């Protein structure tokens, strides 16, 4: 007789495997697309380790396209996992780093660093700010907003109220950034505005190392919190009676979410809607709320979605590049609207 119990997880494992292959394929595909036209065959040759007739093409692929695709991969993972954690902890299907203002918090952190410190203290360009400092500033900014939302959610349980407060906190952070922009010098302002439009392509090879390490740490903490997140599905009361220490649980999620959302925002600017949408796609595809499956599922779907967004933003065939957060918004918002309409009783 077929053991249903064993068959079902196996099916989910297959889904995850197929997703992994898909992400790998998208990653490779992303390397073929860019504003400089490189023939497919040449790209293949360069990737295979061969010498190209144009040495600049090698540079473009190794120094620009691979870091960009890696960044898309990492950003997708990080934003999706932090979205998944927030949705479970706040028991809110519309929670995510962007909507709850966590990304705006990160922007504030970066703005204080880039516009504030550099213009008044160092009189230096933003390029001279260390990568680690940038991550730290963004993560502190995220943590600040997240802390506010945690504090509020202890008293207020209503899903929509918390969302609105998150949006308000985010707006305050954005307003403060706006004020700082007003007082900063032109060159810094320009680099900040470019940053705030979101980009996967401005990241250097060195920054990739920093981003990879930080996101790896964040993901490790998240994967370690799978059991806690599963218990929190039933709400905090039930989690307590199952033996969970709520304060520890919140601290773990708080830490990993701040690191993940903060570091991505530090290097790529605020990227919206990936964090909300991907966990839902994961639940629909895997038909489960077990974080043991949802966590890897979100990692894969998130990186896949970011790679697709990146390819679209490159506008294949043209030399122009669209801001990445416009693409994620255009892809993500219809899905969110669909989720809201499908789940009419979302506020319950």
């Amino acid at each position, binding site marked *: 007789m077929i053991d*249903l*119990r064993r068959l*079902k997880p196996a099916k989910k494992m297959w889904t995850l495997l197929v997703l992994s292959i898909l992400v790998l394929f998208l990653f490779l595909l992303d390397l073929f697309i860019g504003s400089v036209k490189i023939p497919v065959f040449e790209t293949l040759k360069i990737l295979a380790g061969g010498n190209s007739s144009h040495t600049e093409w090698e540079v473009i692929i190794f120094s620009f396209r691979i870091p960009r695709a890696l960044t898309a991969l990492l950003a997708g993972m990080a934003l999706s996992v932090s979205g998944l954690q927030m949705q479970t902890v706040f*028991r809110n*299907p519309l929670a995510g780093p962007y909507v709850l203002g966590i990304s705006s918090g990160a922007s504030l952190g970066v703005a204080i660093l880039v516009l504030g410190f550099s213009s008044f203290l160092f009189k230096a360009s933003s390029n001279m700010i260390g990568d680690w400092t940038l991550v730290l500033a963004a993560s502190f900014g995220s943590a600040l907003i997240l802390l506010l939302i945690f504090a509020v959610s202890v008293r207020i349980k209503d899903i929509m109220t918390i969302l609105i407060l998150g949006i308000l906190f985010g707006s305050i952070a954005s307003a403060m950034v706006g004020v700082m922009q007003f007082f900063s010098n032109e060159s810094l302002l320009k680099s900040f505005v470019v940053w705030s439009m979101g980009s996967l392509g401005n990241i250097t090879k060195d920054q990739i190392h920093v981003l990879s390490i930080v996101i790896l740490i964040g993901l490790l903490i998240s994967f*370690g919190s*799978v*059991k806690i997140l*599963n*218990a929190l*599905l*039933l*709400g905090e*009361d*039930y989690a*307590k*009676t*199952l*033996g*969970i*220490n709520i304060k520890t649980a919140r601290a773990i999620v708080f830490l990993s979410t701040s690191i993940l959302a903060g570091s991505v925002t530090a290097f790529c600017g605020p990227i919206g809607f990936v964090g909300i949408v991907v966990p839902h796609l994961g*639940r629909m595809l895997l*038909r*489960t*709320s*077990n974080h*043991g499956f949802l966590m890897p599922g979100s990692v894969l779907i998130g990186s896949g979605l970011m790679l697709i967004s990146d390819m679209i933003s490159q506008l294949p065939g043209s030399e122009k590049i669209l801001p990445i957060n416009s693409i994620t918004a255009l892809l993500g918002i219809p899905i969110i609207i669909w989720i809201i309409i499908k*789940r009419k009783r979302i506020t*319950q």
Partner: protein
Amino acid sequence: MSDTNKFILTTRDLEIGFLKPPGKPNISLMKGISVKARKGELVAMIGQNGIGKSTLLRTLVQLHPALSGNVILNNKNIEKYTRQELARQLGFVSTEIINAGNLSVYDLVALGRFPYTNWLGNINNEDRFMIDHSIELVDLAHKRDKMLTEISDGERQRAMIARTLSQDTDLLILDEPTAFLDLPNRYEVLKLLRDLSCKGKTIIFSTHDLNLVIDQVDKIWMMTEGGMIEGAPEDLILSDSFNSVFPGSSLIFNKESGRFDYPADRLHEVYIEGEGELKAWTAKAMERKGYLPIEKGGNAEISVKVYMDNGQAYWELKTKNAISVYKSIYELMFSL
């Protein structure tokens, strides 16, 4: 064995309520609660809305702090347990409706194994056995892979109970497990609790279905404005205690039927002549209308004679002035 060893849960002079920040007075709901539950007992807690049933239950499972007094679980003050230790000793089902999407019955029940799994939450064969066994105990084996959104309210409540069963605790505490359920499902859940207590679980639950539980439970904890009264349901009946459950209500506990009745004003007497079911149900309908059926026909102001003729039932109503005949109780009632 000393006397206290037999009790799995006792409260000593417990005061429940809401703790306020320093400087503001605490809100006390009830003081001096001293109740006991033996191993394997099914205990129903009753009391009117707002008297603190949920607060007491939440205090018993440490989701709510006690204002004063103690809760003793297995001879140890409950505050001395860590959350993990407590999770292996008592299971809790609240009134909260779980709305997690894409959560299957199996996954829900699997969460009960939480206190026994490692930090990754890996489930081994022993856990799987417990999960399946718990699902079978609540008779949901055919729904084990269904999502919580796809099953009925009664089934969801049974699944929540199965979750506490897989948690493998000696004590179960449930807050209004029969609320929001239709009558058959209430019976199902109650019978399930009865069966589980026969298997050795101690079960404490709050309910408003006194009529339903009165002949099923071992003990009743009755929260009244005067304090907590405990005892076998029969003890409470004989001591007329039930009439103090709902102060200010005109509900009267009928000692003979073991039910709460709503007393209509019985001004008139009626004599009902007839046999079997026809007579019994006619009497019932007349009672609802405020008439008191009496045995002797002589003094009654009105009398009803119910009889069968050619397979059709007839009700002959005789008053001082007139005699009329009806073909249904509804018509008879309408003419009164």
